[in-house]
């Protein structure tokens, strides 16, 4: 599965938005655009990513830019995986 599809799967699970995620592209805005995207959701997504990919997200990496779009979130995960 491509990384973007794996991240979409996590968003669907955590935000409980089901098939709506199928239409998401790299340019889909997340933070401030999805009503489900609250602080609890941000933390659940980070925790899910940490568990799935076995990396640690530090405090200063919890940044609004990361969650701006699906594309920025996928880039962040890709970057973490290369660390």
């Amino acid at each position, binding site marked *: 599965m491509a990384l973007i599809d794996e991240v979409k799967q996590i968003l669907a699970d955590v*935000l409980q938005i089901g098939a709506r995620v199928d239409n998401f592209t790299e340019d889909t805005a997340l933070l401030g655009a999805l009503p489900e995207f609250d602080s*609890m959701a941000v933390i*659940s997504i980070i925790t899910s990513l940490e*568990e799935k990919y076995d990396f640690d997200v530090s*405090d200063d990496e919890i940044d609004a830019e990361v969650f701006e779009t699906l594309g920025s979130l996928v880039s962040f995960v890709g970057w973490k995986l290369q660390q």
Partner: protein
Amino acid sequence: MTSPRPLPVLRPQFIPGTAGRLFVNHFSPAEPDPKRHAVLLIPPFADEMNKSRRMFSMLARSLASQGMDCCLIDLYGTGDSEGNFADADWDIWCRDVQIAHSWLVQQGIMNISLLGMRTGALLASDVAQRRMFTLDKLVFWQPVVDGETFLNQFLRLRLAADMLNTKSKKSTSESLRQSLMRGECVEVAGYMLPPALAQELASKKLVEMDVSHLGQISWFDVSSHEGASLSQSSQTVVERWQSLGVKVKPSVVTGSSFWMTAEITEVPGLIVASTECLLGVGG
């Protein structure tokens, strides 16, 4: 086909607690089992408690319809019990569980099990190791194995909230921990976390709980992946306990993380497995 059993009776009420009155939901079977057994449900922390309410209610109805009493307790300073979250305290919570246990005994119920969810599993284990009463069974739902890791994840909620609110000054886990060290409450996701509770919670590790005297511990983890094995952190505790002779039986149920999903979700498989385990059927 069996004939439908009469619906259980829900008796919500207040009982006297350690520091204030406790709100308990007592699910009483219409036809109590002659064994008169009950399970005391120990909820998870802060908002996880709200998210888990539905699953607890489903389990209680499932058990009560088969003759078992079920008691869901709101710990002091949470839910509809008296006190504010800022006054909540680990030791008060432990004693509240003991009080709820005694209250069930007063109702004529002698065989009592504890089911702890997330931090509730840490609390249930801590109560069990104080050996104030005999326990029938101990059941965990997605237990928090390390209170400190959990506390860090909880404090992160504040970081995420600050991120969403561009006007607020950005906190760090370190600055929040320093506030707690200075004896100040820290506001996280609408909860005023008291420093003593944070400190107590951070000091709790499941692996250090002395539960070797218990007959059987049933450990349920939930994973969204079919056929998933126990998480590494759970596996470590289970192996350590088994090496110490603790009779712990782990299993993984497929379903969503209902204690943290945005919408309220159900994991029917967990209700079925827990009902079988508590009623003592199917081994």
